[in-house]
């Protein structure tokens, strides 16, 4: 112990991290607020304001030359923060965790007194910038994030600068701007190379990003007539699609999603056993030939369905086809997904090898419900003499001729006989009501039927992408007709056009480039830019990376990819080094270049200056080797050394004199050369 103490005495005293100046605090505060503004997109306004207030309060305390607030206040504030996160976000999920981090950072900033605190704050702010992309990855948001990023590095620079050195002269500013521009010019391609070549993961190694606590609307595995109204007024994009060899009419495209079989009188549900278990065996069903090739960029849904136009035939995505032609991924689609696929447009879904099961499921009805519907269907059955096709037509005619209205404003059901209520009492509803009651009618008539949900319609942007929004969500029916398979019937389309609620029609109207206002056009242009961003940047994944490398002639396994990546990073690093330390960039002072000329001149006569030798010693060496030039060499060295060690402010270096002496030396050397 004594020895240790003695050793300690010889050590330099521990250096305390320097105190934070007001300027430095301002820089970190600006960087933090820049980042906070980005998170304000999803944070509750009260939380954002409270956080900003804490930082503002601290700034005010500094202005008043007061210390940071007392230490005991930390605990109550921390508890307050925990409570706020608990009540507002319900724990530490994605939003709760981010909010917690933001709050902790604000508290940390409020008690920052030293540089080390500020360094921590800046680093965590950088982390928060990256975290912001959990909430939004659009191009505008990403571009905005460059602002807090630059602010962070601006703050870091200030934190390590001597106060006297950050003078705001025009010269210093221009120099700093040039330097920053150069650094960015080098960092940008390096970033891009890392991003393109760094090996990607095929599947998450841990966890899955939870988007669920962000109330996403979308098609789900169950359908309750009337429940889709929220979705139908949501005009956010569900997915964008581009077709390879055609541009089909959006109204012909029924994008197939969850298929519903089980009805309990209120809610339709999928056939979970079929969804997860038995997969479509290609030989089971005679698949029609594909006639449509397309590419889809699906926005995150937090559900496993991929949407393909009826009838889906194949996809390159890592997904399975169920027996009822749903396309399902193992995991939910948590980030933008880009996939290609083929479809057989207009073909009915073939009945699988499990014909008996499909019949059975397709006829199941909750017992004792909707007696009026059953009676009506019995009456039709007698009229049509049991022909299924005729019965379908009869039902559609019923929707067209009776006063059925299409509207998103529907009445609440009052009894358990909901289909009866809709068909005979209300007669106002939207796609879910029509599809649901139609399927119930068909099943009552002994025709196997099922509800299919998905998307219908959309509009083409000028960049060729078909934009399908949440408001394009739709539900329709499929009936099993002997010899034809599952035939699509869209009972909603049977409603007479004049009985469509104009409000709903306006809500569901698609914008058009030709007829739209300038606002519409601007929106569509922005969408096109966003689409480019989505497909070029956000949809880049392991598969795209592999195909990119394959295009470069690299098809090997991960070893090869790792080598490519290392090679690319080294190559980019070499380019960076070259740009920064290029010999051609090395600026020599005119004086130094004059001396270099002298050296070259005497080197031609065999006099080499060892790197460690000073100019004067070298002059003696040269004089000894070339005696005839000795006076000139000494004179040159004398003038050179005087200029070299004169204070820079004294006078400009006597370059002309030096050049004259060099000329003289050259002459002397030439004359002394033996002929």
């Amino acid at each position, binding site marked *: 112990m004594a020895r240790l103490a003695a050793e300690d005495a010889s050590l330099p005293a521990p250096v305390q991290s320097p105190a934070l100046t007001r300027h430095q605090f301002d820089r970190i505060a600006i960087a933090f607020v820049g980042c906070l503004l980005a998170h304000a997109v999803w944070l509750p306004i009260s939380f954002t304001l409270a956080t900003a207030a804490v930082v503002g309060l601290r700034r005010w305390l500094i202005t008043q030359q007061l210390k940071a607030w007392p230490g005991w206040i930390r605990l109550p504030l921390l508890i307050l923060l925990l409570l706020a996160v608990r009540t507002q976000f319900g724990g530490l999920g994605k939003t709760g965790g981010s909010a917690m981090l933001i709050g902790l950072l604000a508290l940390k900033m409020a008690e920052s007194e030293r540089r080390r605190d500020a360094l921590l704050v800046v680093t965590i702010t950088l982390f928060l910038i990256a975290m912001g992309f959990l909430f939004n990855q659009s191009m505008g948001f990403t571009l905005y994030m460059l602002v807090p990023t630059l602010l962070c590095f601006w703050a870091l620079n200030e934190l*390590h600068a001597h106060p006297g050195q950050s003078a705001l002269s025009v010269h210093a500013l221009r120099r700093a701007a040039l330097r920053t521009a150069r650094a960015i010019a080098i960092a940008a391609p390096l970033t891009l190379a890392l991003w393109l070549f760094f090996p990607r993961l095929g599947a*998450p190694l841990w966890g899955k990003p939870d988007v669920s606590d962000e109330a996403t609307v979308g098609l789900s595995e169950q359908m309750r007539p009337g429940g889709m109204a929220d979705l139908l007024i949501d005009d956010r994009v569900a997915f964008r699609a581009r077709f390879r060899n055609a541009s089909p009419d959006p109204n012909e495209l029924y994008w197939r999603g969850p298929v519903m079989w089980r009805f309990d009188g209120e809610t339709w549900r999928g056939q979970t056993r079929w969804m997860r278990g038995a997969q479509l065996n290609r030989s089971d069903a005679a698949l029609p030939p594909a006639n449509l090739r397309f590419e889809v960029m699906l926005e995150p849904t937090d559900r496993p369905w991929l949407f393909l136009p009826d009838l889906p035939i194949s996809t390159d995505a890592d997904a399975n086809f169920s027996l009822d032609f749903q396309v399902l991924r193992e995991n939910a689609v948590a980030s933008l997904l880009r996939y290609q696929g083929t479809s057989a447009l207009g073909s009915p879904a073939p009945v699988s090898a499990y014909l008996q099961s499909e019949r059975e499921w397709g006829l199941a009805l909750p017992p004792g419900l909707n007696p009026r519907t059953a009676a009506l269907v019995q009456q039709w059955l007698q009229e049509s003499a049991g022909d299924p096709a005729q019965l379908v037509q009869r039902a559609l005619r019923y929707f067209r001729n009776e006063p059925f209205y299409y509207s998103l404003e529907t009445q609440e059901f009052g009894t358990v006989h909901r289909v009866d209520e809709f068909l005979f009492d209300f007669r106002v509803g939207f796609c879910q009501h029509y599809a649901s009651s139609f399927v119930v009618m068909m099943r009552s008539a002994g025709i196997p039927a099922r509800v299919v949900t998905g998307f219908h319609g959309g509009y083409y942007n000028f960049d060729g992408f078909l934009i399908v929004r949440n408001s394009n969500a739709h539900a329709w029916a499929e009936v099993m007709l002997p010899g034809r398979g599952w035939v699509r019937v869209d009972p909603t389309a049977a409603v007479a056009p004049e009985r469509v609620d104009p409000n709903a029609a306006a809500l569901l109207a698609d914008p058009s480039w030709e007829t739209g206002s300038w606002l519409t056009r601007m929106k569509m242009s922005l969408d096109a830019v966003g689409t480019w961003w989505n497909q070029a940047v956000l949809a880049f994944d392991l598969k795209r990376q592999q195909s990119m490398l394959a295009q470069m002639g690299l098809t090997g396994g991960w070893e090869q990819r790792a080598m490519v990546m290392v090679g690319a990073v080294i190559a980019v690093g070499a380019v960076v080094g070259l740009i920064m330390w290029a010999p051609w960039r090395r600026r020599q002072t005119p004086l130094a270049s004059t001396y270099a000329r002298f050296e070259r001149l005497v080197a031609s006569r065999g006099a080499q200056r060892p790197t460690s030798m000073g100019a004067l010693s070298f002059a003696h060496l040269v004089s000894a080797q070339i005696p005839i030039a000795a006076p000139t060499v000494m004179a040159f060295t004398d003038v050179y050394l005087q200029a070299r060690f004169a204070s820079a*402010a004294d006078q400009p270096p006597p370059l002309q004199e030096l050049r004259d002496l060099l000329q003289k030396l050259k002459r002397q050397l030439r004359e002394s050369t033996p002929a």
Partner: protein
Amino acid sequence: MFFARARRRLLHSFNQAMERMLSRRARAPLPRTLSRQSIYILPTRFGCFYALVMIVIVGGSLNFNNNSALLFGFLFVAIAIVSMHQTFGNLNGLSLVQVRMDSCHAGDRLHLWMRFATDGDPRNDVRIDCAASGGLLLFADDNEGVVSCAIDAERRGWQSLPPVRVSTVWPFGLFYAWGYFWPDARALIYPRPERGRPELPEDGDGLGLRRRRSYGDDFAGLRDYVSGDSPRRIAWRASAKRDSDGGQLLVRTLEHPSAPDLVFDLATAPGNDTEQKLSRLTRWVLMAQQAERRYKLVLGEKTLGPDSGPAHRDRCLGALALYGIG
């Protein structure tokens, strides 16, 4: 606490090892330039923390294939890599051109000025450390910077310049780059003057004290001010007249017609050992200079003077500094 101490000890021994390694190299004449071979660079503690956070960001974004976050994670990494080059470049090509060390007395601070030149690229926040003292290199323009620091002068004789460490963490503090200069420069350290004002050894004729009273009254002429002159002797009016042509202050020189020469002899100086005697002699020399007396210094066989003036004083102090050393 324990880790902080362990870290400090590790850093300390690392620095010592670096300096030992350096001391085996030959000192080289100026100017010397820092280059790839002589610049070292390591991440700072903050740099390591930053790297950790970057690993988390890149790892997390790869896991969830969040391309925007990944893009920014790599941007942060790329900025750090570029900053490494910038930190290195901040030292690369920096030359130590000139070192000036002023003589001082043992126990005082030895002041040194160092002049650095660049190859035309401006430098930012370069720190210079020499022994326990250091400062920021201040640039008058893009080409030249100066720094001054003061180190302890411990004992008389020649004191050579300890290694000069040049370091920087600019621009972001993620990397620490450093290099050493060890120019062949030395300063003469005069002996430590004895404390107090011991009586000057007046020669035996006993007239010293009485005559001294009349000193100072006989105006002999004017000369330039040199540091150490009593302000009372500055001829302000004459200086002011001269000021118009930008000159210096003038001081009155006084005739001491009857003041006897002083003799400072090491052999007869009081003191227990040579060092104490040298201290006494040093103090006497300073006092005699202040009083503007003529004095002679006898160091064994070597005799200086009798003479007066700053040049004589420096000669005497130099001889005292090197007495018995070389």
